[in-house]
């Protein structure tokens, strides 16, 4: 079943690369939305059907963690799996993400097959796989 994916990163280049990597990985994607920060991402989630979010952590206006906190407050959006794609990997970030229910972390640099495997497992867990 193809999914509607939201990619959130302040770098337009990175958004395109992530999109390309998801496509190359073979992950079934129906629609792909993009946002430049957490605030824009929230607007997309309210306007479109989003099944999965891939987000950077460090972004202007609203970072990935703040965006995740906002989404988790709302029943309607709480179940959307969220993955952080980030170059900054530390225990505090992982702990905070886990407490919020963030699905996982994809470290930058990444390879497409890593993305595919993680995303596929996540969607299976949510019952949409």
């Amino acid at each position, binding site marked *: 079943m193809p999914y509607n994916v939201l990619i959130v990163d302040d770098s337009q*280049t990175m958004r395109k*690369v992530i999109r*390309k990597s998801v496509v190359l990985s073979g992950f079934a994607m129906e629609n792909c939305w993009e946002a430049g920060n957490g605030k824009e991402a929230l607007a997309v989630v309210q306007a479109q059907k989003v099944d999965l979010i891939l987000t950077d952590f*460090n972004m202007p206006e609203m970072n990935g963690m703040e965006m995740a906190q906002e989404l988790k407050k709302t029943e309607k959006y709480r179940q959307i799996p969220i993955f952080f794609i980030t*170059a900054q*990997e530390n225990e*505090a970030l992982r702990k905070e993400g886990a407490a919020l229910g963030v699905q996982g972390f994809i470290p*930058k*640099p*990444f390879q497409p097959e890593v993305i595919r495997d993680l995303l596929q497992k996540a969607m299976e867990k949510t019952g949409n796989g």
Partner: protein
Amino acid sequence: MDDLKNRAAAVMANIFETMFFIFIEPQEDVGPNEGEGRKLSETGPGNPSAQYFKSSIQVEGELSGQIKLYLPHDLSRSMAQNFLGLDEEVPQSQAMDMVGELLNMISGNLLSSGSKKIVYKLSMPSNEAVDSQELEKEFRQQGMNLDFDVEGQKIRLQIQLH
């Protein structure tokens, strides 16, 4: 100091290979910079007015300061083109964005390679085009310089952390 340098070299190699499929060669040890920079014209493309893209990130945490990356203009454009899988040349803005994102990956990975327990705050990358003459001034600043060769072109990573 050597540990940081070795980790930086390993991080650079990993990122260039994983994301860009490029193998980079670290150059001879330029050592900690004590006010004397290596002349770019000796190692760069040979054109005194050749442009480079520079990206800077501010770091706050157990170590603070900044990390800068200098990439030749032409190399940046070709890397961005390949990165995005495009046939046509990319605009300068997109090449600069790529350099910023590259530095973001380098900085995050470098700081994490020391310890995953320490939290650092990284600024957004600040990107600009600079020419060789401006670069000579920048390279004379205090800091750790690591040079790499990519297909005959020079890349510099400058680490100013304390």
